[in-house]
């Protein structure tokens, strides 16, 4: 009883914190506060999700929401300081009405679902032995709904291509982090992150983890690597980037088409080799996700710099 009450208190506190931060984030007049509070929400949310039996999702949320988007939001805030679009925001009634309607419809839709049960957990558990992996979420991602994952990798690639056409990358933080302490830190952190990514990928077959968590971790390692550079220059490795970023889509398309000859269906892994094929596809996806996320942080096409770096402000 005591434990239950404590758990309830924890859940209510977490939920209330997230909601309070969420409203604070959209109400505050200070743009920096908006960004900082949003990063905070992402982190608290990750804790909340572990309470909901979703540690792997929490990891992905912390890496993508707080890490990737947090870094990009801070960069965008720094570069748009002083050129805020439009006049001050005074409207209250219309937005409040919109928010109330949305919440009412969502609440009405969700209310009957309390205590009701519908889902495919049992069916999926019963067929796990036909998939080559034993963790249900990974099985859904790479086998039952592999087409979703293929398209998701395409979304990442499309976002990267769209970002690249906007122009050349500018130096990351202009090398402001560079120094002996940071270099020593990267020397220790980089191998740890790579090992962690490999562990997450390998564990994904049997327990929470998988290509996305591993890719996000590896992307963090990649960003560190790009930051260890006195001028903050991003090396212009066009070919390597292009191939690494496409590797996931290429693997899913290639293997998916290849197995069609054996099993007669696109992305239908033959049972005898399912484990190995899935591992290859997931490894390729990990490399692609890591490359793409790291390059999205860079935010432009990495090109060879001639002479001086960029334009000074």
């Amino acid at each position, binding site marked *: 009883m005591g434990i239950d009450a404590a758990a309830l208190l924890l859940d209510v506190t977490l939920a209330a914190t997230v909601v309070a931060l969420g409203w604070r984030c959209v109400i505050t007049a200070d743009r920096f506060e908006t960004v900082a509070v949003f990063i905070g929400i992402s982190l608290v949310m990750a804790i909340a999700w572990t309470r909901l039996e979703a540690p792997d999702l929490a990891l992905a949320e912390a890496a993508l929401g707080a890490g990737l988007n947090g870094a990009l939001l801070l960069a965008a805030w720094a570069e748009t300081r002083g050129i805020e679009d439009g006049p001050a925001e005074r409207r209250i009634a219309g937005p409040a009405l919109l928010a109330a309607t949305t919440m009412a*419809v*969502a609440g*009405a*839709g*969700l*209310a*009957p*679902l309390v205590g*009701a049960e*519908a*889902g*495919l957990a049992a*069916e*999926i558990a019963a*067929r796990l032995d036909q998939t080559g992996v034993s963790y249900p979420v990974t099985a859904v991602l790479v*086998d*039952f*709904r*592999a*087409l*979703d994952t*293929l*398209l*998701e990798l*395409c*979304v990442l*690639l*499309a*976002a990267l*291509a*769209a970002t*690249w*056409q*906007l*122009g050349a990358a500018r130096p990351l933080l202009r090398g402001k982090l560079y120094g002996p302490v940071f270099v020593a830190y990267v020397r220790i952190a980089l191998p740890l992150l790579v090992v962690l990514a490999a562990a997450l990928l390998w564990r994904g077959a049997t327990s929470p983890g998988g290509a996305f968590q591993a890719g996000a971790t590896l992307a963090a390692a990649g960003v560190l690597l790009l930051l260890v550079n006195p001028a903050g220059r991003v090396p212009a490795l066009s070919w390597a980037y*292009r*191939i690494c*970023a*496409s590797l996931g*889509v*290429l693997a899913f*398309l290639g293997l*998916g*088409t290849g197995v*069609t000859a054996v*099993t*007669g*269906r*696109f*992305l*239908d*892994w033959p049972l005898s080799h399912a484990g190995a094929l899935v591992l290859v596809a997931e490894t390729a996806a990990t490399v692609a996700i890591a490359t793409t996320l790291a390059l999205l942080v860079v935010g432009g*096409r990495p090109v060879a710099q001639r002479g001086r770096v960029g334009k000074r402000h």
Partner: protein
Amino acid sequence: MGTTAETLLAHLPIAIIVIPLAGAVACFVLPRAARALMAVLGIAGTVASGWLAADVLEHGARGYVVGGWAPPLGIALHADGLAAALVALTAVLMTVCGSLARPRRSGDAFFTSWLFAWAALAVVFLSDDAFNVYVGLELLGIASVALVASPGTRPALHAALRYLAAGLTGSLLYLLGAALLYASEGTLSFAGLEDAGGAPAAAALAFMTVGLLLKCAVFPLHGWLPGAHGCAPAPASAVLSGVVVKSGIYLIWRLWSDTLFGVPADAAANLLGALGVGALLWGAAMAWRAERLKIVIAYSTVSQLGYLVMAVPLLRTAGVEALAGVMLLAAAHAFAKAGCFLAAGAVLARRRSDRLETLAGLVSQMPIAAFALGVGTVSLVGLPPSGGFAGKWLLIQASFAVHAWWWAAVFIAGSLLSAAVLIRALAPAFEAAPADCASRAERAGASEWTALAIALGALALGPLAGPWTSLVTEGSIP
């Protein structure tokens, strides 16, 4: 011969998705070969899509179970006549307009986005799975935003950002709806959702519909469209107006007729119809005030989308006949609009401006482009023998059949409005060229001839209404 062709046929639905996807990755990895890859894969995709349409017309709908897992565990594709027709329309427009694209410098990114958009459209049209469609919509959104942003100017970037925000919000609402559906029904397959009901399904339908209305710019959620379609390069505008916005309308049709959810939704369907009328009027009013040719054409899209949404209540009551009419209208609009945008692009390229007053002398100097604009206008207004006329005719018949004569009145009034708007915009083209311009006719380029050919497609749809209608209604929804 039989077995090989049969095997290939069986894989056509997934091939139509895989071919442009492979092309997109290939363009990204081999940027120098992007244009050649685009041409080759465009032809392959068009052949595959045409073959699928022919097969569906002859043998009926065709399904495909991806990964060997049937729904609800896995994802199925379902190519009925409606989906096959839209896929074929997409393939033709994507290939023809793509061959005209002259991207600024980063051609690889342009063609990658182009082919991703094509693949995503195929997913949205063919997939039977609500969540798979969500991922397809996101891919379509990001690729389309990339196309809008490709000129790299500040107005283009601004329009792209607005488009992205609208698309992201729309797909978020759609995702919430899909999650509610799965949580209450235990499946994401549209086929398995046919008798979904209750408050969760009603809320899901509301969220998904609003999200899609935002994504396909139906009045009053159309604010992002004129900027995005007006700033994009002409071939991109052509496919964005021609097929991309129709993907959202197509999903609305499916949600409101295929999966009725057991919701007492007739009142809500009439509300959608009213939004359509609003779109028709507002789009026409804004097109009347616009000062640039591309903006006029973009607002005309806002207006024409009104017809497609107005058809929702008719689809529920009049069924197949209304579907035939509205699809004819949609296809005619796709061709006419693509032709108009390509012609406007040619004018813009030649005259460095598409302001209406600079159109003076167009008929004598760029007769082919002017002719393309004229042919497109004929179909958009709905004059015989165009596809626009045939589509409206079928819709008017359908509304009389269910004693909903007021819809017929709206269709006729809409034609008059379109005529007024487009004729006002094109009138300067018939004026004499200003003295400082050379009065000689200039040699028409490939883009002008293509614009004319595509616009003539809208005219040809009138006589071809029979086969098109039998394809569209093959194994179809209502």
